[in-house]
C-alpha cells in the first residue's frame, strides 16, 4: 500500500517533529527520550493526567494533550505501547505534588509499561493511580470486562479525566469518576478495509471488497463476525444494538455520542452513520447531550468507523461540557 513517508524506521520520530513544530503554543517536547510530550502551560497544583499508547492512531494520543484534556503523553512505536522511559519522563514533568493519573487502553503491553513506570515513579515519591479503558464491547463478553480493550472511548474518558482534574478533583476522586465513566461507556466498531504498517506495507488483514467485519480492533485484531457489507443504516443499527443493550438505555437517559472514522472513511459516511445513530436514540427517547463526529482515534488508513456512547449523569455531563483546547479537539 502507498505511503507518503521518508523511511519506515523514522515515521514516528518525524511525525512528532512535525507535530511539535505545528503546535508550539500547546506542546513542549521533553528531551531525554524524544517520545514524551507535555502541555505548554500546566495548571498549578492540579492532579496530572498522563496518557499514552502506540502511534498510528492520530490524532490519538498526542492530540489530546492540552487544556481540558491530558497534561502529557508518551508516544510508542506503531501500534506498540511506549516504554517506561518516556512515561516516567512525562510523569515527572507533570507532577505537581497532587499525584498523577495514568489513563490508557487495556492492552497487555500498555499495562506492563505503565505499571513499570508507576513503580519507578513511586521510587521517586510520585503517587500514581491507574484507570484502564475497556470500552470495546466487541472485544470480550460482558462477564469478562477486565479483558476488554480500549478504543475510541478514549476520547471521552480523557475528556472526563482532564475536566475533573481542572475542576480540582483529588487523585482518588479522579479515579472514582473515571472508573464510573468507563463503566458507562461502550464502543462498537466495523472495519471495511485494512490498514498497513509502514514497515511491511502489507494489509494487516484480508477483507473482500464486499465484506465487513464487526468488532475488528484498532490494530487489525480480528473481530467478532464477518459478513456481507450492509448499508450504513443497517450497520449503525447493528453496532448500536449491543451498546444500548449493555448500557440499558431507557427513555429520558442522556448520552454523549462519538462517531469515529478509522482513517480512510469519509466524513460524509460518518455523518450518514450519525444520522441513523441519532434517529435510533431518538426513537428510544434517549437524549443526545453532546455529539462528536470525525476522526478521533484512527488506525492508520483502515476503513470503517465506530460508535461510542457514554451514559451520562449530572456529574459526567458537567465534565463533558467543560471547555477544552487541544490540537485534536476544541470545545468552547
Amino acid at each position: 500500500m502507498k505511503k507518503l513517508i521518508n523511511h519506515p524506521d523514522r515515521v514516528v520520530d518525524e511525525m512528532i517533529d512535525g507535530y511539535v513544530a505545528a503546535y508550539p503554543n500547546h506542546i513542549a517536547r521533553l528531551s531525554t527520550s524524544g517520545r514524551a510530550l507535555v502541555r505548554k502551560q500546566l495548571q498549578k497544583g492540579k492532579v496530572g493526567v498522563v496518557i499514552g499508547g502506540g502511534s498510528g492512531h492520530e490524532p490519538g494520543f498526542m492530540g489530546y494533550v492540552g487544556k481540558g484534556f491530558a497534561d502529557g503523553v508518551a508516544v510508542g512505536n506503531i501500534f506498540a505501547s511506549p516504554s517506561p522511559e518516556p512515561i516516567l519522563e512525562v510523569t515527572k514533568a507533570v507532577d505537581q505534588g497532587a499525584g498523577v493519573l495514568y489513563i490508557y487502553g487495556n492492552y497487555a503491553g500498555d499495562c506492563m509499561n505503565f505499571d513499570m513506570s508507576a513503580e519507578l515513579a513511586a521510587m521517586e515519591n510520585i503517587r500514581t493511580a491507574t484507570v484502564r479503558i475497556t470500552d470495546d464491547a466487541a472485544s470480550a463478553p460482558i462477564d469478562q470486562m477486565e479483558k476488554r480493550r480500549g478504543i475510541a472511548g478514549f476520547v471521552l474518558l480523557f475528556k472526563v479525566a482532564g475536566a475533573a482534574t481542572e475542576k480540582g478533583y483529588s487523585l482518588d476522586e479522579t479515579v472514582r469518576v473515571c472508573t464510573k465513566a468507563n463503566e458507562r461507556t461502550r464502543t462498537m466498531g466495523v472495519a471495511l478495509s485494512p490498514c498497513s504498517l509502514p514497515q511491511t506495507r502489507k494489509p494487516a488483514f484480508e477483507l473482500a471488497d464486499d465484506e465487513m467485519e464487526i468488532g475488528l480492533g484498532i490494530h487489525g485484531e480480528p473481530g467478532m463476525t464477518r459478513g456481507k457489507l450492509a448499508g450504513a443504516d443497517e450497520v449503525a443499527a447493528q453496532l448500536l444494538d449491543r451498546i444500548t443493550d449493555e448500557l440499558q438505555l431507557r427513555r429520558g437517559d442522556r448520552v454523549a455520542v462519538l462517531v469515529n472514522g478509522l482513517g480512510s472513511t469519509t466524513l460524509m459516511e460518518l455523518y450518514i452513520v450519525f444520522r441513523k445513530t441519532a434517529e435510533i436514540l431518538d426513537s428510544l427517547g434517549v437524549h443526545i447531550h453532546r455529539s462528536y463526529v470525525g476522526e478521533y482515534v484512527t488506525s492508520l488508513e483502515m476503513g470503517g468507523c465506530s460508535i461510542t456512547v457514554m451514559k451520562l449523569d449530572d456529574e459526567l455531563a458537567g465534565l463533558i461540557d467543560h471547555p477544552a483546547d487541544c490540537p485534536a479537539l476544541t470545545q468552547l
Partner: protein
Amino acid sequence: MPLSAREFMRILLEIGERVENEQHRLSELDRAIGDGDHGVSMAIGWRAIRDKIKELEHEEDIGAILQVLSKTFLNAVGASVGPLYGMAFLKGGAVLKGKTSLSERDIVEFWAAAVDGIRQLGKAELGDKTMLDAWIPIVNSLRSSMESGADWLNTLDQAVRAGEAGMESTRQLLSQKGRSGRLGDRSVGHIDPGAASACLIFSSFVDAYKRIKGMNIG
C-alpha cells in the same frame, strides 16, 4: 569450554541478524492472530541491542552487559515484548553478575532465570499459547539434561527440539493472553508468533555458540 564476554556478545549479534532476516515471517504469523507487528517489534529491539553492543566493547562483566541491554531492549520496543524480554535480560543478567566467562552450567542458569522473569511478568503458564510454550520446554530440557550429565552438544540440540515441539503445540491451543487472547476459537490453527520468535532466538543462540566454539553442527 567457557564463553567469554566478547563471545557472548558475538552470539547476541548473530541472534539479532537472524531476527532481522526473519522478521517478515514473524509478522506474517502475527497477522493471522494479532496485529501483525511482532517481527517489526523484535527487529527494533535487536537492532537497538546491536547498536548498544558497539558501546560495550570493553565491558567484561556479562551480568553488567545484560543489565544495560535489558534497558536498551525495553526502551527501544515498548509494546509487550519490550518488558518481557527486558525482564528476561535483567533476571538472566542477575545470575551472571560479576562473571567474565560462562560455564555450561552458567548458560543453563542464565536461560532458566531469564525465562522465570518472563513468566513472572507475563503471568502466563504453559498452554496459554504464548512464548512460554517454547521457553518453558527449552529450560526444562536444558535442566534435565544437565542433571543427567548428558553431553553438552546433545543438551543444546535437545533443548532446541523441545522448543520447536513446544512451538508446534501452540497451533492446537486456544490463546489466553495478549491481543490474541480475545480471539477465542479463531486463534486455534495458528502458531503463536511469540513462541516462534522464542525458538528463533534460542536456536540462533545454539547455532552461534557452536560455530564460535567450533562444535559440530548436527
